[in-house]
């Protein structure tokens, strides 16, 4: 193993192993997500029944919904719970006592948490929505496979970038929590992430004039871009453009995070703790 990367890979592995232990939470989450998925699919069906011409068809919108339920764990809704607790108790000082780059270290932790959390849920969700539903005759409501090998390949790249993008945003939330000394500093996250990622309503169903903005804002890379690549709504150069948008925001989030981290850690006082 590369010596320079060793601490970061090691924390990634440990966090991943730890997250896999939370089976009960994963099961509860899975049940909730099946329920929500079913409701959202029905709402979409009602919406499509009233207006036939939409940028994506109903089958694609349904696949989009199941993908979203399966990959819900990738969304950066909160700061790292352990770091938030450490900030509130003063333990965060220890983060600076480790001979590692704090930003990279936090990023590795976040990637592990997102990947493990999602890995646990996506397979059962896929089993239910893609295999079980057609078996009981609900083919029309099921989760379809990617539109082709090229879409599958581009999706694999795009969803990997989603993991990094989401984790880089999680680190920004961690820094906000550290700067303001309360986990409530991260409460801004769901307000931004839920609507702007396309988790609530697919972004392509929003008004046409908003599309350029929606495509290039950072949170589209969490849901909208990878999912549309999945069923071929973004293909060829449009797919590459989507991946470029994700790369752009990954880089910006990391650059901003590193600069902000340096500022916050220089003035964080931790008096009396």
């Amino acid at each position, binding site marked *: 193993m590369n*010596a320079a990367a*060793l*601490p970061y*890979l*090691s*924390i990634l592995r*440990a966090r991943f192993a*730890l997250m896999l*232990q939370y089976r009960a939470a994963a099961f509860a989450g899975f049940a909730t997500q099946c329920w929500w998925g079913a409701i959202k699919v029905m709402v979409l069906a009602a919406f499509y029944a009233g207006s036939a011409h939409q940028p994506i068809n109903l089958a694609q919108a349904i696949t989009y919904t199941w993908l979203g339920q399966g990959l819900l764990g990738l969304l950066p809704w909160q700061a790292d719970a*352990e770091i938030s607790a450490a900030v509130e*108790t*003063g*333990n965060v*000082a*220890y983060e*600076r*006592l*480790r*001979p*590692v*780059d704090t930003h990279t270290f936090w990023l590795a932790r976040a990637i592990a948490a997102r990947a493990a959390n999602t890995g646990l849920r996506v397979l059962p969700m896929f089993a239910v929505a893609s295999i079980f539903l057609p078996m009981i005759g609900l083919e029309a409501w099921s989760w379809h496979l990617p539109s082709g090998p090229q879409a599958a390949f581009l999706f694999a790249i795009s969803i990997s970038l989603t993991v990094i993008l989401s984790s880089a945003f999680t680190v920004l939330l961690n820094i906000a929590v550290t700067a303001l000394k309360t986990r409530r500093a991260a409460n801004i996250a769901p307000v931004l992430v839920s609507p702007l990622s396309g988790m609530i309503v697919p972004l392509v169903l929003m008004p046409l004039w908003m599309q350029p903005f929606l495509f290039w804002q950072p949170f589209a890379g969490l849901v909208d871009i990878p999912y549309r690549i999945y069923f071929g709504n973004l293909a060829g150069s449009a797919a590459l453009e989507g991946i470029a948008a994700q790369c752009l925001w990954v880089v910006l989030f990391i650059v901003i995070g590193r600069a902000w981290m340096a500022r916050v850690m*220089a003035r964080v*006082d*931790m*008096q*009396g*703790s």
Partner: protein
Amino acid sequence: MTQISVENLSKSYSVAVRDPGLAGAIRGLFQRRQRQIAALDDVSFSLERGELLGFIGPNGAGKSTTIKILSGILRPSSGSCHVDGLVPWEQRITHVGRIGVVFGQRTQLWWDLPVVESFALLRDIYRVDQPRFARTSERLIDMLKIAPLLDTPLRQLSLGQRMRCEIAAALLHSPSILFLDEPTIGLDAISKLALREFVKDLNRTDGVTVILTTHDMHDIEALARRVIIIGNGKLLRDSSFESMRAEVLGERRLIVDFANDSSDVEIEGADVRARDGRTVEFAFDPERTPAHTLIARIAASHEVVDIRVEDPKIEEVIARFYTLHGAVES
């Protein structure tokens, strides 16, 4: 050889202040006032390799601030500080790889992980190679008697067990300096004694420099040859504990249980410090009136059940020192 040198170190915090009441709160919405609080004020000292330094002072005196600057977490407002040739807050990553830190009220191990997995993670974070890690950890596990605890997640350990694991964790990368910030806080008597023995041994056998802050004066008495006292951010004294005791409170105590009512007993050469029923505590200066003279005087004039001679308690010496220097938090 000088390992740590601290020159004219100062650190001030700015604290937001507002006028009292609702009107003050509303004014505070538009106009924030900041007040500067000096946590450290022009502190200088230096430390040789292999020393064991006790760092004491009342709450809020600046002990933790000093430890945090020395360990690279905090950046001072002014002054300079070198540890093994490095400026801690500027070369943080290299610096923290060479030191070990234990904060008594904090934990650096992972709450949900078995201790042994936390150790393995620390091995990778500190980039300790496996053969060296195996040697060091085996020795620490043996010395701190933590072998039966290793497979337990940290959250299931008692405070005393946890502290032993924390100390082992801080030493896995063989640091040359160990910072202990109130390591015995909340520990039972046996754990405290064991911890003191371990630290003494580590300092003597391995030559690890130890800087210890504590409120438990028995830690200081048992461990530190040299003591720095800090109050209101200023360095008040830097000397051996014994020399401070002699200077601050050289007197001894004579405690007498009288057979009869003792409410009006006075003895020449000794001052009454406390009365409790038939027991009276006298203070005397052994240089001027030796104990045997005093005892003879008392026995000659009163009927006595028991007599004991004691040194003032270490807490008392320190409290007296703080009061003399106006060091107690206002």
